[in-house]
């Protein structure tokens, strides 16, 4: 039993796109870990590990890293198998840029906590337009950015950092926020490829197997009176 202490621990939530990025990276790199599902806000065990109180957070021996961007770059540097960044500096930088568009301009503004907060401050009817607006702005940028770089995947024919970000942001946009994807043919094509990719299917399947209260993530049914 005590031998298992050497395995990494990942504090995660099944519906968190940030957590899913990391789970996909761990899967691609063949890394074993214990998945600790955090389902409540302000979980004290999580706060000890991540002072922001967000998932994901990774414990790897004596190293504790939170924030998916930091975790992914840490994993890439420590476990170089199945590289998440291309060697070519231009393609590598495009991966950083695409990841940053998602992590700085889209995800923080459509995350559940903030969207519900906007609902309280403005109106419950504003939640969906707010989220769709910010996702759309980011997708306009991504559609243009990747036009000259995409192959089978976002920046070539291998899954890289950008794909880890896009897969789950697209999933949120299409399934959670019902964004009209007509103006994003490249992103939609990429999403269809992601859905056919076994490693990504594995992560989607793991999430759907979890018992969670999905009503927090439903922004499209009418509010009860």
């Amino acid at each position: 039993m005590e031998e298992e202490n050497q395995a990494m621990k990942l504090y995660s939530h099944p519906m968190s796109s940030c957590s899913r990025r990391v789970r996909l990276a761990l899967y691609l790199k063949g890394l074993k870990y214990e998945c600790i599902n955090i389902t409540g806000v302000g979980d004290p065990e999580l706060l000890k590990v991540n002072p922001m109180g967000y998932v994901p957070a990774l414990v790897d021996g004596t190293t504790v890293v939170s924030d998916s961007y930091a975790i992914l770059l840490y994993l890439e540097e420590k476990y170089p198998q199945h590289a998440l960044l291309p060697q070519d500096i231009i393609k590598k930088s495009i991966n950083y840029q695409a990841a940053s568009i998602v992590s700085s301009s889209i995800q923080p503004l459509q995350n559940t906590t903030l969207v519900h907060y906007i609902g309280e401050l403005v109106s419950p009817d504003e939640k969906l337009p707010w989220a769709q607006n910010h996702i759309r702005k980011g997708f306009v940028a991504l559609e243009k950015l990747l036009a000259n770089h995409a192959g089978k995947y976002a920046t070539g024919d291998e899954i890289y950092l950008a794909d880890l970000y896009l897969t789950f942001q697209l999933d949120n946009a299409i399934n959670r926020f019902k964004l009209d994807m007509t103006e994003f043919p490249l992103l939609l094509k990429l999403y269809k490829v992601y859905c056919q990719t076994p490693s990504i299917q594995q992560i989607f399947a793991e999430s759907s197997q979890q018992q969670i209260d999905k009503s927090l993530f439903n922004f499209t049914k009418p509010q009860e009176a």
Partner: protein
Amino acid sequence: MGFVPTLLDGDMVLAESSAIILYLDDKYPQHPLLPHDLKKRAINYQAANIISSTIQPTLRIPILAYIRDNIGPDERITWVHKHIGKGFAALEILVKDHAGKYATGDDICLVDVLLAPQIIGTLERYNFDISNYPLLSRLSESYKQVPAIRNALPENQPDFPKELKGIILIRIY
């Protein structure tokens, strides 16, 4: 996205400050912005991302305009203080075991490159008092002594209008 900054370097056109900084660190290795130690690198990535993905996106002008127009002008201060406060509280805890003269040691690293502009020349727009954050307050005093940080201030840029010097721009109170 239509945002600054955007870097043009030969054939390379790159946006998003974190992508630009990592590109520059890759291509121009003088004065590396990341330590060799993996743990310290991870702390830098994490702290930098607290700023670029948790604090800064909520302070953008279009967001504050939305708050002003849909809730009220006074709500902007509450909103800003909430988001900066949460991020700064996390940073205080995150870097406290790593800080030296600067956030993660005695050299300016990635997190300092993001933190300094978040503090110097910015917080006064929001009437935000950093003295509640002792470590960040100390770092702020260190940053003010660094010529490169002073040179990067808006009022020291060649295109900054002279008549605006000394005025707190984009003030929300």
